């Protein structure tokens, strides 16, 4: 046995025991029938997947797609100019880059909680608006679609900026100048040079914002309350309160399938992500 094999063995064991086997169990559960008191058993069935054709659950799936799509577009649109700024920021670049990443590395939970603090009825925004007499009673800013979207954009934005920046950094600015010298309008240069060059970064950014937003649980729970049930909340709910594990397992696997499709699309031309 070589040293390399010995070194890989513990990680292989952890990956098999704590990732592949659990996923296989979820796959098996998703094909089983729910027992009368919770739990799961025979016969094998596809019914758990068919339930997503029910408008009630189909709507949750569509809503998750919709809000993840909105988050992605907002992050790309908001993130691109900042990535451009970073790539052209000269000496202070490292500092500016760290300022983007710092909130990303601090607690996800605390960052979401910060918005609860700002948006709730007795929160900072309402308090300020009330004291300025702009409103007479608190406006409901929290527990709606917009609040969840805001929380998702807030948490994902650094993840969108970074890959776009890393492709823009490699953009040869002489190309942009040459295009301008040859009479291209700024928009034309942007469309024909900047976008194609940064396409891999944009694709990675889209993946890194879409996937976590699609599977979010914490953001929609804290900022959406009961008003914005997404697929992540559905999974959590089926495994806890509703005790319908087979259905929750099916929902998990649908989520996984979408994530894997995304992964294949993103890594198509590139190397492994590790």
């Amino acid at each position, binding site marked *: 046995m*070589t*040293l*390399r*094999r010995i*070194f*890989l063995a*513990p*990680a*292989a064991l*952890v*990956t098999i025991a*704590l*990732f592949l086997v*659990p996923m296989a*169990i*979820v796959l098996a*559960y998703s094909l089983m029938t729910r027992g009368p008191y919770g739990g799961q058993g025979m016969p094998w069935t596809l019914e758990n997947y068919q339930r997503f054709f029910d408008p009630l659950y189909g709507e949750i799936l569509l809503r998750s797609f919709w809000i993840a799509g909105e988050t992605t577009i907002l992050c790309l649109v908001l993130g691109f*100019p*900042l990535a451009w*700024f970073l790539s052209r*920021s*000269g000496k202070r670049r490292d500092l500016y880059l*760290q300022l*983007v*990443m*710092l*909130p990303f*590395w*601090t607690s*996800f*939970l*605390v*960052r979401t*909680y*910060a918005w*609860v*603090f700002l948006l*709730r009825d*007795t*929160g900072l925004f309402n*308090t300020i608006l009330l004291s300025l007499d702009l409103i007479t009673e608190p406006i409901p800013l929290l527990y709606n679609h917009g609040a969840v979207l805001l929380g998702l954009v807030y948490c994902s*934005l650094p993840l969108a900026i970074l890959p776009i920046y890393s492709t823009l950094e490699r953009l040869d600015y002489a190309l942009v100048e040459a295009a301008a010298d040859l009479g291209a309008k700024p928009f034309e240069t942007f469309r024909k040079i900047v976008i194609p060059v940064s396409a891999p970064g944009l694709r990675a950014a889209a993946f890194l914002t879409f*996937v976590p937003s*699609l*599977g*979010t*649980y*914490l953001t929609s729970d*804290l900022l959406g309350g009961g008003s914005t049930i997404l697929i992540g909340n559905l*999974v*959590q709910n089926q*495994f806890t309160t509703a005790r319908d*594990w087979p259905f*929750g*397992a099916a929902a998990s696997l649908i989520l*996984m399938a979408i*994530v894997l499709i995304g*992964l294949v699309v993103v890594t198509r031309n590139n190397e492994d*992500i*590790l």
Partner: protein
Amino acid sequence: MRPTALGLYATAIYAFLHLPLLVLAVFSFNSSRLTHWESFSLIWYKTALGDPALMEATFNSLVIAAFATVLSTSIGTLAAYGLWKKKARWLTASLSVSLVTPEIVTAVSLLALFQILFRVLRLQLGMHTVVLAHVSFCLVYVVMVVLARLRTMDVSFEEAAADLGATPWQAFCYVTLPMLKPGIIAAALLAFTTSLDDYVITSLVAGVDSETLPMIIYGMARRGVNPAVNAISTIIVFGLGILIVISQRLEQQK
């Protein structure tokens, strides 16, 4: 830099990213329970630090993070070394997929596994299950950071060691490992902070005796107004922030 539209835009984005946390930190020093600023006070820090449930949860979180960090860092470093010169397709693929798996899916799959195991082993959910879960999601981060460090390194040092008669084990111990040290510390800090912050997976695999800090914060945040949460959050953000800055310095160190 002269103020341009782009500069203003960047300022606005930085404000958006940083102001919510700054405001939260400022109001943790407010003497009032309400969002009106009254006067500077450390009362919420006293309240938070005097809360036995909160302190116990903090202790649990630190113990779990310590175990998860030591385990995932050692296993992950060895694995990264194993993947450095030659790929292992299925392991790389599995780790990549685990990296992008939504947390809630990881959480329920581990819950399902533990439930089956406990039927056989007569154990219960507790600190040990949380540690196992954390090792499983920290592992890929460690592999990623250490592998990135390895890729910047020159293989010829090890080859020179081998030429001089070192066994592969000696070459690893005395040549590569010392050079990897900053990368390993950075990976460990990343694992530690990720473990300390996790709520979604922890909440599903924790037992009654293993409530963690994020679980308490989450519960308080859902119940609503409590400036003690602001105080705890501020401590966490500053604590994690310092750890992260150290880790980034180490990663860039040549």
